[in-house]
């Protein structure tokens, strides 16, 4: 019998995030799927993970971000379920959890994976991008167990034909030995736009916007896109730091990336080069972003973006 796959499904107040549904989809190729949620997750979460093929939902409470305590709880689940693989989405918090979990379960560890395969004998093989996505690596996990953190948009989420009705069990997280203390936690306000890390379409403003993001936002709204920014734009305070795409900010790999006034410094490319299609508008014909843009336009973003938005509205009047 194939060993089960544990999938950590990130959720917002019990509603699974899109990244979690993608992971459940990817996990189905590896074995029977069991979902794990951290913190209160009820019937809605169970129905949703069942729709994407999970036969069980394990709820870990209390909800905490302490990686050591969570890793211990997950390690017990690995033990009791006999899971050979644990999948999670590659966020900063999850990567810390993945590291601790791999350590205590003696598992192989891959983070920021862009794809997942199985080799002969059930070994897990991952695909990763390296050096600002200029290289592609295929790696093999050499341990019987694997912990893999997969980037959003690596696999499209598709429901199963007949939804599963997962059994729901609750497991305690022992936080008594925790030495770290969270003094304050402020959830980021939601913008009404898609989450930047998970969005299928991202419109990004850089230095060329000179702080005026109105054209970027207008196009983003027409495209149903998330809004991102370069380091310069966030350092200038034109937009919050959480919007920064790049090596030290958010890594995005949407189907469509539109850069407006983005020069394409190596720091930024490291966070977006794996995007499907890249469209760039910049006044400087020498901007390095044009080296990687599928469609590059030299010109003034303040006239081009609104024109594109208007034309898209005309072509899709229902939108």
């Amino acid at each position: 019998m194939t060993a089960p796959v544990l999938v950590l499904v990130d959720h917002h107040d019990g509603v699974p995030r899109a990244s979690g549904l993608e992971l459940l989809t990817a996990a189905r190729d590896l074995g029977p799927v069991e979902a794990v949620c951290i913190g209160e997750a009820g019937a809605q979460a169970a129905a949703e993970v069942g729709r994407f093929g999970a036969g069980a939902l394990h709820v870990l409470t209390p909800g905490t971000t302490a990686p050591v305590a969570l890793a211990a709880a997950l390690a017990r689940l690995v033990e009791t379920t006999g899971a050979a693989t644990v999948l999670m989405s590659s966020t900063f918090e999850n990567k810390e959890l993945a590291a601790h979990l791999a350590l205590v379960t003696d598992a192989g560890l891959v983070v920021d994976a862009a794809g997942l395969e199985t080799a002969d004998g059930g070994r897990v093989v991952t695909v990763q991008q390296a050096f600002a996505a200029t290289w592609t690596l295929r790696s093999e996990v050499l341990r019987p167990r694997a912990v893999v953190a997969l980037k959003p948009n690596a696999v499209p989420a598709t429901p199963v034909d007949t939804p599963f009705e997962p059994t729901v069990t609750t497991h305690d997280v022992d936080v008594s030995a925790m030495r770290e203390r969270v003094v304050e936690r402020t959830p980021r306000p939601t913008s009404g736009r898609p989450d930047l890390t998970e969005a299928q379409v991202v419109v990004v403003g850089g230095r060329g916007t000179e702080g005026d993001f109105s054209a970027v936002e207008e196009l983003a709204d027409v495209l149903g896109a998330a809004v991102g920014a370069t380091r310069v734009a966030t350092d200038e305070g034109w937009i919050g730091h959480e919007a920064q795409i790049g090596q030290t900010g958010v890594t995005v790999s949407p189907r469509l990336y539109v850069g407006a006034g983005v020069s394409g410094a190596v720091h930024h490319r490291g966070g977006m080069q794996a995007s499907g299609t890249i469209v760039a508008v910049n006044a400087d014909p020498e901007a390095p972003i044009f080296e990687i843009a599928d469609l590059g336009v030299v010109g003034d973003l303040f006239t081009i973006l609104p024109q594109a938005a208007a034309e898209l509205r005309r072509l899709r009047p229902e939108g």
Partner: protein
Amino acid sequence: MKIVVCVKHVPDVQGDRGFTDDGTVDRGQGDGTLNELDENAVEAAVQLVEQHGGEVTVLTMGPADAEDAVRRGLQMGAAHAVHVQDDALEGSDAFATASVLAAAVRRIAEDGAVDLVVTGMASLDGLMSVLPSLLAARLDLPQATLAAEVTVDGGVVRVRRELDHATEVLEAPLPALVSVTDQANQPRYPNFKAIMAARKTPVTTWSLADLGLDASEVGAAGARTRVLEATPRPPREDRVLITDEGDAGVRIAQYLVENRLV
């Protein structure tokens, strides 16, 4: 307070980075540098020592070139430098690296307890961000990672962390491990005097044997993953570059529709 900062020597991000045939990072290009994000770690440590007294030791693991990374740390204000170098370390994964750095931190602590271990948020070659957690686990230290702000007061370190979906303020009792982001500070540029002074500071070199570690636990032999193949990404084909003649916005819209991107 006594602070150890772990730093890494990495290929220059502006350079031509690649992999060798056995799937390890090509470190033979000769244009390596101190991982830029580790400069934030050194800066944070030096600032804490300036406020609270004490001294900073920079620690690295890697081939001969890696000494450049700790030299840079000395120029920025570290008092001591340690370089763990051993042929058996080649191909080490993050687990082995954490074990080696942990052993080195313990050895440094023999001359006086270490209050804080500081790292950067990621190395610009691997970008995994898992080493700080693994190192904290190996040293059995509480961790306060991804700090955009670090303060120490009364034996407690307090950090502000910008996470994916929230901002958090976290406290941990010393001794602890902290990783800092590039938002934490603006690394200083060493002046001529500091550069000259750093040249005179000896760099302590330790081998695996000095740390009481066995070669079988590290290097490619002990790695939990293996690169099967590394291939440069083919350049994007059919790229189009146009100059706006008044209709570029319409052309973008048409391009998106034709390519079924909307």
